[in-house]
């Protein structure tokens, strides 16, 4: 599991108004290959178009490490505005040089030091890098010690069973295990699980399995009509799901990090 809480620190005063814990998160990364914000805007626009909802309210990290050295200053205000315009929440940069970091800090972006993130091999896809880090057997202790509070987690971890319809606007997260839904999942609903997701009913919303980076996680459903399916951050939106796989029982898994949808 990716979440790796430190042992509780005992408070000398005995007053416990909060707990300090560490947790790691899988986040999309926008890896800049070009300092020209306009060029980025054009490419990003096309990408977001395909999955507008996927980026809504999603925190993102801007990765600067692959920018050609000697590119001038990056226009962070423009870039941040651009990302926000697509509904993302840019909150930090990584891999920048001193100048770039200073410019980012001036905009109140967090500068994520290298120690927070294990340098993965250069990945081709947004978000895969972070996932590499997440599946490493022993995550670096400092990993993500600066991340925001974890989402609400249910007690009684392991798996979760739901037998009422999951409606538009509802989110269900099975932390640390599988999620089984024995009912319909409406369009606009979101299922998340660290493990597998099983849906015995039409799946019309989104399903994200392997949330903690587990590349082995799968999605099984009886009637695929999903808006988005994702395994460990590798996703596909409805448009990219071939018609012959819609409305039939399928399983969805990663094969060499490529999302596969297969009839059952």
């Amino acid at each position, binding site marked *: 599991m990716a979440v790796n809480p430190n042992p509780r620190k005992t408070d000398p005063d005995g007053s416990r108004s909060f707990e300090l814990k560490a947790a790691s998160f899988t986040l999309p990364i926008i890896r800049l290959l070009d300092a020209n914000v306009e060029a980025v805007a054009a490419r990003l626009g096309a990408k977001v178009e395909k999955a507008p909802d996927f980026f809504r309210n999603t925190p993102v990290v801007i990765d600067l490490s692959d920018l050609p050295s000697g590119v001038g200053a990056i226009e962070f205000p423009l870039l941040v505005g651009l990302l926000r315009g697509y509904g993302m929440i840019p909150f930090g940069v990584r891999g920048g040089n001193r100048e770039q970091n200073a410019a980012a800090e001036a905009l109140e972006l967090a500068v994520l030091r290298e120690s927070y993130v294990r340098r993965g091999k250069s990945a081709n896809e947004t978000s895969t890098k972070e996932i590499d880090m997440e599946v490493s057997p022993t995550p670096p202790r400092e990993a993500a010690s600066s991340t925001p509070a974890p989402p609400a987690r249910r007690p009684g971890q392991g798996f979760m069973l739901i037998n*009422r*319809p*999951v*409606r*538009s*606007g*509802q989110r269900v997260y099975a932390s640390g295990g599988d999620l089984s839904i024995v*009912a*319909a999942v*409406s*369009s*606009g*609903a979101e299922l998340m699980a660290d493990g597998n997701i099983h849906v015995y*009913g039409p799946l*019309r919303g989104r399903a994200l399995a392997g949330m903690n980076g587990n590349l082995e996680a799968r999605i099984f459903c009886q009637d695929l009509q999903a808006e988005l399916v994702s395994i460990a951050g590798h996703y596909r939106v409805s448009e990219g799901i071939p018609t012959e796989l819609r409305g039939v029982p399928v399983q969805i898994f990663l094969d060499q990090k490529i999302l596969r949808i297969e009839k059952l």
Partner: protein
Amino acid sequence: MARIIVITSGKGGVGKTTTSAALAMGLAQRGKRTVVIDFDVGLRNLDLIMGCERRVVYDFINVINGEANLNQALIRDKRCDNLYVLPASQTRDKDALTKEGVEQVLVELSHNHDFIVCDSPAGIEHGATMAMYFADDAIVVTNPEVSSVRDSDRMLGILSSRSRRAENNEEPIREYLLLTRYDPLRVVNGEMLSVEDVQEILSLKLLGVVPESKAVLTSSNSGIPVILDRESDAGQAYSDMVSRYLGDEVPHRFLHPEKKGFLSRLFRG
């Protein structure tokens, strides 16, 4: 103890108030002691549809604020002794509806009524959350169009989490679907979703299908709940709805375009 029914929808103007008036009247006519409450503070119009707008002295907010007692605020229906209306305030602020206040009124009404029908404002603003919080049953009013169905789905999600029953881990609110303004001809022409389409998306018990009908406007303009217009299709559909709510198996009507419609259109045109 009374059963509390909330009439709700995600989208506005779908027919909640029309339905509240019809349901309340229908229950009362069958001998159930019924009160219908207008939760749409600031937009009072249940009293218009019930035809008692000229008898409003005190309102729901007055009762909550202790400025009047329930007996002073309740308006007895002139057509049916079992029916009372608790009107909303036109002038007050929505926030005057406090959870404690609402609860107190509902508890008091529970003692001597069988059903409390809550006419909710649309969406999930304060008045709507107050109307749904204490509900035992919910009737989600939906028009056969995509946006309305989507909003109803969202409402159902909210209903299942933001209610007293959900918070106390009790048996969940019983949810029913009511399709209104159903126009079979437009369904056939593919301009509207069919009953089957809507049910497939919402997977919910269908309490009734009320056709688009001129009778609705005529009745509400004269302050008569349309269920009292027994000749009208909408009135009959609402009557069936009440029977189903009370547990009778009644087949659905008005689902298909009238056969003679075709010929008469041909000759009229």
